[in-house]
């Protein structure tokens, strides 16, 4: 079961590994990213930031959708990491199990504008957010568990 779907352009790093795995009990982290899944060197670096006692799978977005809809996924407590709002939308639309999208960290990209101190969004990102919200799912910005949630409705509507 998906505990958290997080959009973070750095994917897995110390903040994610430390803060979130402390506040949500996890036994599986999935990095859903087509580029990383094909890149041995980047895979190796993510392996270093994995918290102890948690499995890590690095796979493509497509395979992740299939996995999250499988029975096997129901047994796990999963943190899914994607690096773009686009991938997050694909997962949210493809998996009934995903109830919310956490905007964790998106640096300036393309013609993006800054909406919170950690989140910058382009118009395309905003379209994706609205699409997810229209499907009845929550989208919110929150860097670490200690921060307060900021609903995306405040800047996407």
């Amino acid at each position: 079961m998906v505990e958290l779907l997080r959009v973070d352009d750095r994917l897995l790093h110390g903040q994610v590994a430390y803060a979130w795995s402390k506040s949500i009990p996890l036994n599986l982290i999935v990095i859903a990213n087509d580029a990383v899944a094909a890149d041995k060197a980047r895979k190796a670096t993510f392996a270093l930031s994995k918290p102890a006692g948690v499995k890590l799978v690095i796979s493509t977005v497509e395979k992740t959708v299939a996995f999250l809809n499988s029975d096997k996924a129901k047994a796990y407590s999963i943190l899914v990491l994607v690096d773009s709002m686009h991938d997050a939308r694909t997962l949210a639309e493809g998996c009934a199990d995903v109830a919310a999208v956490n905007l964790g960290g998106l640096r300036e990209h393309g013609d993006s504008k800054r909406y919170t101190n950690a989140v910058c969004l382009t118009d395309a990102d905003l379209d994706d957010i609205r699409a997810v919200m229209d499907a009845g799912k929550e989208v919110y910005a929150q860097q670490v568990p200690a921060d307060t949630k900021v609903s995306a409705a405040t800047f996407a509507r």
Partner: protein
Amino acid sequence: MTIFQEVLLGLIAVFGWCEYVDGINKSTRPIVMCTLVGLVLGDLSQGVIIGGTLELATMGMMGIGISIPINITIAGVLGAGFAIAGGLSAEAAVALAIPVGIVFRLLEHLATTGYDLVAAKMLFDHPERNTPQRVTKAFWLIFGLSCLFMFLTVFLSLLVGAETVAAVANAIPENIMNAIGTGTNLLAALGFAMLFNLTRTPKTMAFFFIGFALASYLGMPTMAIAILGAAAAAIAFFFGDDRAAAGAAEDDILDDFDDLDDEPAALPAAREHLLGKKELSAIFFKSFGLEGPFIYSRLQAIGWCRSMLPAIEKLYDTDEERCAAVNRHLEFFNSNPEFSTFIMGISASMEEQNAVEQGFDTASINNVKAGLMGPLAGIGDSFWWGIVKTVASGIGCQFAMQGNVLGPILFLLVFNIPHWAIRYILTFRGYELGHRVLDMMAESDIIEKISLCAGILGMMVIGAMTCDMISVSTPLVFNMANGVTLEVQAVLDEILPNLLPLLTMLGVAELLKRKVKVIPLIFGLLAFGIVFNLLGIIA
């Protein structure tokens, strides 16, 4: 003096002695004891003055480990009692009190050996039977016996009268007193040997000798050696071989979802604070009893263990777990009582980790204790005895010398207000520090490494303390035919300074390893020390 007053004086000594459980520290000091004696004997101001005078005269005699030269409680009560009853001056009271205090200190040595026997019978002969209740029982029984000793020595001395006591005190030959002193000094080796056996691993053995050599050749203080030990531990930690840990992690990184097991491993338990204000406050209050039952083989161990009981009872439910935890905390412990709650807080956080984490290396708990107790004793004794107690005495005596009762009251307040505040805060600080550090540790599979690093620090400090706290030397001198004298100690010093303390400790450790029981060892060491001292072989 009436029988009633004699009984009351005995009770005053017991009240003073209760500083070792009630937390009114330094109430055994003469400035307090003599005042109360004056009150009972109807000459309060003379009591206060004698107290102030004796306080100043004994200010330098501080207790480190077991080498306390005088039983200050008895010295104060009897000194003031005899002086006020006999109409003697304050100076005469001091002249009477000090030899009496020294003699009763020797008697106390023998009584303490008796407490060791009781402790061995109740707690150490059958460790598998230990429970928290048993520790509490032994705690109060041994402390009760020491109170009885205080009461009886004072009461009986008053019954036989000043002249007889003074005559006996002066009649005991000095060499007998020295011999008993040597015997009890040897007993310190027993505690270190136990700690040494507990902490030693082939990997950390070298650090024992490094610590010993630094203390012995360079005369480095324990604090400095502890800093070096901590640095060595940090080097081992950060530059050590991580391949094993990395290899273990590799299996958890998968390329495909098909490689995932159908059944995931159980979720790691969320780390919550299992111990709260209630348990930590209980530890703080119980820590007042750290030195209540003081035994030679393990010094403050029983008081330490009782202080940890609130955590043990909260964290563990089964008898086996509680028994194991109790025995862990019945190991040798000796440190500064006022700062001890800091180590208790850290130990409590480690016990908490052990309670939630399977496969936690429990040896690391005692390794950390061993590493901290030396340095904290060093800082604590100089801070509390050297600074706070000196200031309190200075202020108290100024009033006391004028016969003002404010003297003893200010003395107790000036010492104890910072004492209570700091001791309380340190309990929580220690716990939070331990919790935070362990939380970081839990991030990677490095508990084994922590244990190694704690072992390095512990072994270095044990090495240093072996050199500093066990004092054995030889006065042997051989007169050669041609008029040349050969001082054996000088020869030994050329080989290795403090060789005898080292050999004593290693020898006792070896005997313990060969399952020699503690009680025969206590008597053996005591007898060995006394006999060989009288033969002029050791001092």
